[in-house]
């Protein structure tokens, strides 16, 4: 199935596309036309072997080999794109733009899926997964460092925004952390209170659910007026950077969005604690505070971390939108690119955001496995 999609992609769509300049849309160029014949043949060969392996009876060793092959295929596809772009660039005028085409993305996606699938079937633990990710990341960085991708327009966009990129990436991470951190600090005590007094749960969840349903841009807009008023009324706050636009409303909105999953999961976690355990804890003379922090919260931790994982991934995406109100972050490139009709600039914002989301997901998944160790 995967293989069929991959093959259709190779034959039916352009691996790369070339345009006379940044603004015009490009003309597609197929995989075999674009790349060195040997690279194209290599990609086809590995894909064929992977197909045969997927038909063979499952065995751990075989799945490991398949994972290694899929990893190699990923690198080969990326390398081939760089290589082909460089070849095209020598024959093209200096203003020409060479972008990654639909064929590249579909091939890349199928290879990545094949890798994830093989790792899962091989029963790879988080240590092995980290090793695979690190290897692929380092290899890609090494290729980038050697200038392999220089001819691709994505790299050109990066070059022209290089000074801004690091700042935007850091700002994006800061926005997410500034959203998740306070949401945990507010959400966990809220959840503990709600778990103690079930009557509070109805109204609390009604409010939090309502907040979730407000579209992000609308929430940014709603916060604009009161914060602008607050900043003009209290100059000290304005001096601290609080205003109708900028990071302050963005962070507030992100916190509000993050509250529901954190509160809901923590309440569910506390409600799931065996009543006999609570009876025993009280019967042995734990105070209410000791019961909460030594028994209920640790036992709710696996669910709490699961909530944190959902929230973090969600906020990485929402923080992109925050660029609209001047909060900065990777969204800056996305909206700038959209405004200039420059797809590669959009990608310069979107790809690292996807990477961040995946990284956060992976990190918190590992943390969740640690938190659930004793059950």
């Amino acid at each position, binding site marked *: 199935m995967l293989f069929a999609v991959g093959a259709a992609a190779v034959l039916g769509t352009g691996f790369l596309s070339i345009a006379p300049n940044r603004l015009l849309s490009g003309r597609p160029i197929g995989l075999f036309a674009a790349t060195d014949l040997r690279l194209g043949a290599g990609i086809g060969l590995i894909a064929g072997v992977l197909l045969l392996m997927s038909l063979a009876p499952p065995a751990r060793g075989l799945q490991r080999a398949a994972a290694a092959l899929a990893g190699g295929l990923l690198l080969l596809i990326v390398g081939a794109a760089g290589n082909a772009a460089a070849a095209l660039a020598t024959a093209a005028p200096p203003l020409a733009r060479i972008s990654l085409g639909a064929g590249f993305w579909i091939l890349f996606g199928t290879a990545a899926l094949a890798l994830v699938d093989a790792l899962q079937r091989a029963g790879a633990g988080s240590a092995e997964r980290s090793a695979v990710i690190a290897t692929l990341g380092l290899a890609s960085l090494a290729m980038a460092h050697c200038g392999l991708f220089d001819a691709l327009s994505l790299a050109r966009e990066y070059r022209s925004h290089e000074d801004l990129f690091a700042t935007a990436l850091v700002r994006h991470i800061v926005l997410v952390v500034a959203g998740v951190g306070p949401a945990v600090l507010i959400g966990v005590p809220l959840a503990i209170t709600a778990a103690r007094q079930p009557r509070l749960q109805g109204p609390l969840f009604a409010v939090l659910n309502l907040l979730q349903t407000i579209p992000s841009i609308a929430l940014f807009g709603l916060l604009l007026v009161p914060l602008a008023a607050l900043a003009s009324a209290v100059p000290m706050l304005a001096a601290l950077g609080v205003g109708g636009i900028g990071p302050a409303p963005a962070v507030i909105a992100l916190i509000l969005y993050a509250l529901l999953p954190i509160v809901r999961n923590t309440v569910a976690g506390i409600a799931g604690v065996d009543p*006999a355990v609570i009876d*025993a*804890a009280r*019967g*042995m*003379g734990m105070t209410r505070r000791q019961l909460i922090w030594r028994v209920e919260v640790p*036992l709710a931790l696996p669910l709490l971390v699961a909530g944190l994982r959902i929230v973090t991934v969600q906020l990485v995406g929402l923080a992109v939108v925050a660029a609209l109100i001047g909060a900065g972050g990777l969204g800056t490139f996305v909206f700038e690119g959209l405004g200039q009709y420059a797809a590669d600039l959009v990608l310069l914002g979107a790809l690292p955001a996807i990477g961040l989301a995946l990284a956060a997901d992976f990190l918190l998944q590992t943390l969740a496995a640690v938190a659930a160790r004793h*059950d």
Partner: protein
Amino acid sequence: MIEIDSVSKAYDGRRVVDELSLTIPEGSFCVLLGPSGCGKSTTLRMINRLVAFDSGTIRVGGEDVRRVAPEQLRRRIGYAIQSTGLFPHWRVEDNIATVPRLLDWPRARVQDRVSELLELLHLDPATYRAKYPHQLSGGEQQRVGVARALAADPELLLMDEPFAAVDPVTRAVLQTEIVRIQRATKKTIVFVTHDIEEALILASDIAILERGHLAQWGTPLDLLERPASAFVGEFVGGGSSGLKLLSLRTVADRLRPGETAAGEPVPMDTSLRDAFAQMAARHSDRLPVSDAAGRPLGTVTLADLVR
């Protein structure tokens, strides 16, 4: 000593404990016995104030339990329950150390106490200290539960049907253990069960409760021989109170000293019930009896059993 003085507790207007008065002497193994809904668990949980009573007073060691902060009170009273309530995220060691740590014992003293208790409960400290509750069998979990209840050397132990959820063989072993521990430590134990057989094995005193009242207080023998009401007679004996009586007495009580009889002698602490079973198996109305060292003491006859 625990003095329960005309204590009442109502849920939604229905009195589950009704003007109950009961004095449990120091060092007693007291079983609260009765059918479900008779108020025995509620009574137990009022002693450590897990249930707040509406009226009356309860004194433990002469002190009114309502004059002590509930947490302080509970740390002085051991507590073990049916489903053990072990903390799943803590190792056996941490579970047992719960109350000593709440009381801020020094680390070394806690360590020693944990080892001592694991040995008392016949669990090898080296093997069991670092295990998590889910790695233990039901019987082992219950042993850890009892060890945890004993950890801070409480003056009093409350046990709410602690052995109800384990298999019959394990239950019999645990019953023997808790009797041994009670004899060795001389602790006062209040033990809730609905199982009359268990009560007869464990108790030095039994309080039978009926709809929140004390129906009868006495030794197991008192209850079987002189039930105070038809309810007690029915609950304790059912159709076989005679056999239960036989199981409470030993052949030493009915010995004919100096007489001799043929066959393998039975030890003097054999229950009359087992002696009766031996006679039936041997087709004999007379058994020789020996002491613990195997020296002949005398005989016991079929007629003596039903005397």
